[in-house]
């Protein structure tokens, strides 16, 4: 039993830290620390820096220009990035489509598309959910009907994250209606310039524009844009969910957020005393700290199991549940610690006597309610674990 990193892993962590210290632009780190929204060019700048270092495609094998990292190395990288307030790698092209193409794509698709993901030529977004197909994704209705060497797509996708920056979208579409719903789904690549596609913003409760809905009206897409076989889309989607998920536990984010919360308790007052002197409030923080330390180990245990060849399944669902619950609880305490000063919505230029890094905390709290909803809601994760426990 040894809970420390191997010397190689420690050296790797030091290398990542050194890289972040020298290569992460200060303005991006500051935006991260203050939870400010990142622009498209902010993200592209960071992607380009990572790509120049060869550290952008963390889930790809080396032969395709990826890092070839183990799950443990990937985890170290992601934790260090989070704690340094680096922008999060936008996952749709890099961590979702990339691995799918590497596993299911044709040689032509790999040769054409992967380099364009790496160099930022293409910004991919995801077309999975529909208004009537959320947790029950297999009930999706967007139709792709074959017409010669084209698919004609009609339907609507939703919750398309950062679609406003994208020029491409990968979609799950229905190519057959007979048999089980899962059997008639295909995975297709679509150029957003295609006539008949319209993207509309969805404003979220905190006011931000992060997600979109995408409408398809007789949009014509070459059949060559199919990934894998026709009607194999569900297999591809499941592969993505079980094998290529990174940073599920979000330990790095929670570590960063908990440190911020502790800083905040020194800076704000309750009943005229620093909040840090309130044992009831602090007790809640200490319990979250214990939860987070346990999660750090649970995460490492499960990464180790994956490294030893165990198939991921219930483990990643557990990490998702506990990781999001902890992160949301930290955010909730942060919001509470701000007291009435948590409320200002749009109030530039007024000094509320709270730290700059707390300015967008309430918006972030509301935005982070998504954590337990997206990527398979926590209830769906419980269903997955229960299936393993009870069979059936």
């Amino acid at each position, binding site marked *: *039993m040894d809970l420390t990193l191997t010397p190689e892993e420690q050296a790797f962590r030091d290398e990542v830290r050194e890289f972040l210290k020298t290569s992460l632009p200060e303005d991006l780190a500051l935006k991260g620390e203050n939870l400010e929204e990142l622009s498209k060019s902010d993200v592209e700048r960071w992607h380009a820096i990572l790509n120049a270092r060869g550290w952008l495609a963390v889930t790809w094998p080396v032969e395709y220009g990826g890092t070839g990292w183990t799950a443990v190395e990937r985890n170290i990288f992601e934790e260090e990035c989070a704690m340094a307030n680096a922008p999060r790698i936008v996952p749709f092209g890099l961590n979702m489509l990339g691995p799918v193409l590497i596993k299911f794509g044709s040689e032509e698709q790999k040769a054409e598309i992967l380099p364009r993901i790496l160099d930022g030529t293409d910004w991919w977004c995801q077309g999975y959910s529909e208004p009537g197909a959320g947790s029950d994704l297999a009930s999706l209705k967007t139709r792709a009907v074959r017409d010669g060497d084209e698919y004609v797509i009609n339907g609507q996708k939703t919750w398309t994250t950062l679609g406003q920056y994208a020029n491409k979208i990968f979609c799950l579409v229905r190519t057959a209606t007979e048999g089980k719903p899962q059997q008639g789904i295909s995975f297709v690549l679509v150029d957003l310039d295609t006539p008949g596609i319209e993207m509309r913003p969805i404003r979220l409760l905190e006011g931000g524009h992060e997600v979109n809905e995408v409408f398809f009206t007789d949009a014509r897409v070459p059949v060559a844009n199919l990934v894998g076989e026709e009607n194999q889309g569900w297999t591809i989607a499941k592969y993505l969910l079980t094998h290529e998920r990174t940073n599920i536990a979000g330990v790095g984010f929670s570590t960063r957020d908990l440190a911020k919360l502790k800083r905040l308790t020194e800076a704000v007052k309750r009943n005229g005393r620093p909040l840090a002197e309130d044992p009831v409030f602090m007790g809640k923080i*200490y*319990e979250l*700290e214990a939860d987070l330390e346990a999660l750090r180990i649970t995460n490492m245990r499960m990464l180790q199991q994956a490294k030893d060849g165990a198939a991921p399944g219930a483990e990643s669902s*557990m990490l998702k549940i506990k990781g999001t619950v902890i992160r949301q609880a930290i955010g909730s305490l942060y919001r509470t610690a701000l007291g009435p000063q948590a409320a200002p919505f749009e109030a530039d230029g007024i000094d509320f006597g709270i730290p700059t890094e707390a300015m967008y905390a309430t918006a972030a709290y509301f935005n982070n309610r998504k954590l337990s909803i997206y990527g398979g809601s926590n209830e769906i994760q419980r269903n997955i674990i229960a299936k393993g426990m009870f069979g059936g």
Partner: protein
Amino acid sequence: MDFKHTEDRRMLGDSLRRYLTDKYDIEHRNKSAYSAPFHDPGTWQELAELGILSALVPPANGGFGGEGFDISVVFEEFGRALCAEPMLATLLGLNLLCRYEQQELVNELMAGTRKVAVAVFEPDNSDSLTDLQTTAEQSGDSWLLNGTKSVVYGAPTADLFVVLASDGGLYLTEDGEVAGYAMIDGGGAGQVTFDATPATQLTDDGVADVEAALDAGRLALCAEAVGAMDVLLAMTVEYLSQRQQFGTVIATFQALQHRTVDMAVEVEQCRSITTLAASKLDTPERARYVAMAKNLIGRGATLVGEEATQLHGGIGMTWEYAGSHYAKRLIMIDHQLGDRFIQQQRMAS
């Protein structure tokens, strides 16, 4: 990073599990755990012969363990079997006596020929080492103890007491008037009164050592909880999978599935924090990580105990059902050596 125990510790755990599975079923346990002397002397002797007590003692004192992971391996198996033998008392006593050149006593304790109990807390002070009322007064070469100690685990069966007095000194005596009792979750404890009781002084400043010994005890309780949680979770899954209502097994009901999953997630978290605390037991960060572990175990074990009772319905309320005794133990572990709120405060310092 490596989450596998050493070969030696795996063998220790395996042999203890085999012994307890073969010789210590729940009926046997319940027969001995709730009535005087609140344990089974035959079992204790066999545990000593198996070398389980020596696993709690470092090699320098003639044992073959004594580290955090030795403690966690032994107590996790105790938890799995719900073993009510006075192992916690013995761990505390051995931990202290090994520090004070009491090799002969250590040998006797490892052999199971003597039993020790550590008397720290008092009726008016059941959770801190300050403001103790029990006094030690020098009288020639000897010392005289006066006062009443409470929450003395293993007291009913002990023939040796290690006593923390108000001066911070640590004393050793064979006498003391024990008012023993069974705990609601099994096993014995006692209130011990000293009335001009002769004793020898082990040290004149034992507070830090007692804190360290108590942390070893807290780790042991955490590991015991993890073992018991594992078993109770499995019992719950099995029960839900065979109990039929509304024409189907109730394991098909999502409300019950999700509650069971939440138990399973907590079990993994509790296992993780206990592993972490075990790795820190002999480091300067000991107190902080043990406090974290005992806090999380206090919450997690209570959740698993209460939820298992709920999910079992009426059967979980019965004395006859083994699961009810596991649930009791899991809930009462929070009460031993500082509950989750006290551990919160320890994390603050």
